[in-house]
């Protein structure tokens, strides 16, 4: 079983056309000829993920995000840092092969990042207004109670919230990663997503929620962090790959939330 064969099966089973123009969904380390002993899915190919995957004899890593700390895995940018050489050395030592699945994961139906995040934060599919809408209408609660519930269910230490904790909310739009949905829309009370800049972005963002809150409008913004938001769905990704790669073990090896918060 080679890495190339695994990727061929992924492409065949995707249910959506493969776009060769992607710079994201390519080999980031190693190549198609590498013999695969097992497959690890994860959010990021961290040093620690490499070590734990290797210890479990999973030498093919399929991350949703980057290996070398930028979206384009731009080795020219990081190549002079000794950490880059150390990471390459570690991956060579364990005969690691890395193939990223990002664009095609989001193009796939269902998009497992949403499936995993909804499961992780506790948004039951019976509350989704239409399949794939990622819009949930839950029994009315307060932003404070919702955020506490999401924090407890996800285990996110550094989850961040904007809005009045006492605001009454029920209409939630779920986003994933940096693809945070708009909040300045009348039919959404709360956006739950991974990451978005605080100001000066392409869209509205948390500063809109700050002003809405000052004006007494019930709006909320719950940022899980990028890893918490998108890593849950890598469990679904592992299960899906297992379905057509029965020859080797396939499992989620979590990068885990990177942050802690001071008291």
């Amino acid at each position: 079983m080679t890495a190339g064969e695994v990727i061929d099966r992924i492409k065949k089973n995707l249910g959506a056309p493969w776009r060769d123009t992607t710079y994201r969904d390519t080999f980031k380390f190693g190549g198609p000829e590498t013999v695969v002993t097992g497959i690890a899915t994860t959010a990021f190919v961290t040093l620690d993920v490499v070590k734990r995957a290797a210890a479990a004899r999973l030498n093919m890593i399929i991350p949703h995000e980057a290996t070398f700390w930028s979206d384009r895995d731009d080795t020219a940018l990081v190549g002079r840092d000794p950490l880059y050489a150390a990471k390459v050395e570690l991956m060579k030592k364990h005969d690691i092969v890395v193939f990223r699945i990002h664009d095609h994961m989001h193009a796939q139906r269902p998009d497992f990042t949403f499936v995993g995040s909804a499961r992780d934060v506790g948004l039951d599919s019976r509350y989704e207004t239409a399949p794939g809408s990622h819009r949930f209408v839950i029994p009315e609660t307060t932003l404070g109670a919702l955020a506490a519930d999401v924090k407890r269910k996800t285990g996110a230490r550094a989850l961040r919230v904007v809005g009045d904790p006492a605001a009454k909310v029920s209409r939630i739009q779920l986003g994933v990663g940096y693809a945070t949905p708009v909040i300045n829309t009348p039919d959404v009370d709360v956006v739950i997503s991974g990451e978005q800049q605080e100001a000066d972005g392409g869209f509205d963002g948390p500063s809109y929620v700050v002003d809405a809150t000052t004006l007494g409008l019930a709006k909320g913004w719950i940022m899980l962090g990028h890893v918490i938001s998108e890593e849950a769905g890598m469990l679904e990704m592992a299960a899906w790959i297992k379905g057509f790669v029965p020859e080797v073990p396939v499992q989620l090896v979590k990068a885990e939330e990177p942050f802690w918060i001071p008291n």
Partner: protein
Amino acid sequence: MVTPKKSRADDRTVSPLSRREFGALTVSAMAAPFALISRATASPPISATDVIDRIKKSIGVEWKPDTFDTIKAGDPATVVSGVVTTAIASMSVLRRAVDAGANLVITSEPTFYGRADARTPPAGRGGGRGAPPPPDTPPPSDPVYTAKNAFIEKHGLVVFRLNQHWRLRRPDPFATGLASALGWSKRIEAPGDVLRYSIGAASLSALAAELKKKLGTRGGIRVIGDPQTRVQTVALLPGSTPLAAALDALPSVDVIVGGEVREWESVEYARDVVASGQRKGLVLVGRIVSEEGGMSECARWLTTLVSEVPVRHIPAGDPYWSPS
């Protein structure tokens, strides 16, 4: 609406910074509206255009027309009663500016949320996800935009963004301002390098707690690294910075204190640096919080240019909270 007395109390909870500089530079601004009036009548009138022209003339970097640093709302001919600087001209900051008798607000970040900083919601927004709206459909009315515009109109405010030119000034006022807010100005490592400080050995967890207290953060502060790591040298990366900035800074210091980064860049880099066995850390305090020091510096600088009316800094505060 908060009263002037309440707004001072707010400032104390939001940031100790405002308390200090308040006494230092804006006694008249806070005294009473009467003081403002008598001072304003004693000085020749100065318009928003006059203030902005003085900024352009004195800022020390070439003024470029095609930047975000323009008037975002209000009539440039408005006679200025007082100037407020802030990291972001939120509704709360605008209210406190009015309470303080000021009508010119100078903001680092957009007043109307996105980079476009337009006074109306972006066309095509408001319909939620999915199909784009038909062309030529005006954007639906938005209660936040509407209320903010109405407040600006009612109080005759002028809002000017000053970011791209301010951050090009040397030494970098966002760095010197953040260092000043943290009480580190005299702990500079090498003369001229305002990004690096030697703060005396402390654990990463003690440093994080100190940052939280001094900057008045709530839920917006996040840390990477072993809490017990001893840190002594610090690089400041205020605002929003790319991976290149972390690659440049972290190898030569123990810890980066930054505003905002992309989590898939500097956060994952710092995590791997720590996992490789290096005793280092990264503390993110938030983009807005990290820029208040620089805008406080801006208020100090503006008092040297504008003597006719009071100038003060009003911090917007940490937008985030953390559920318990």
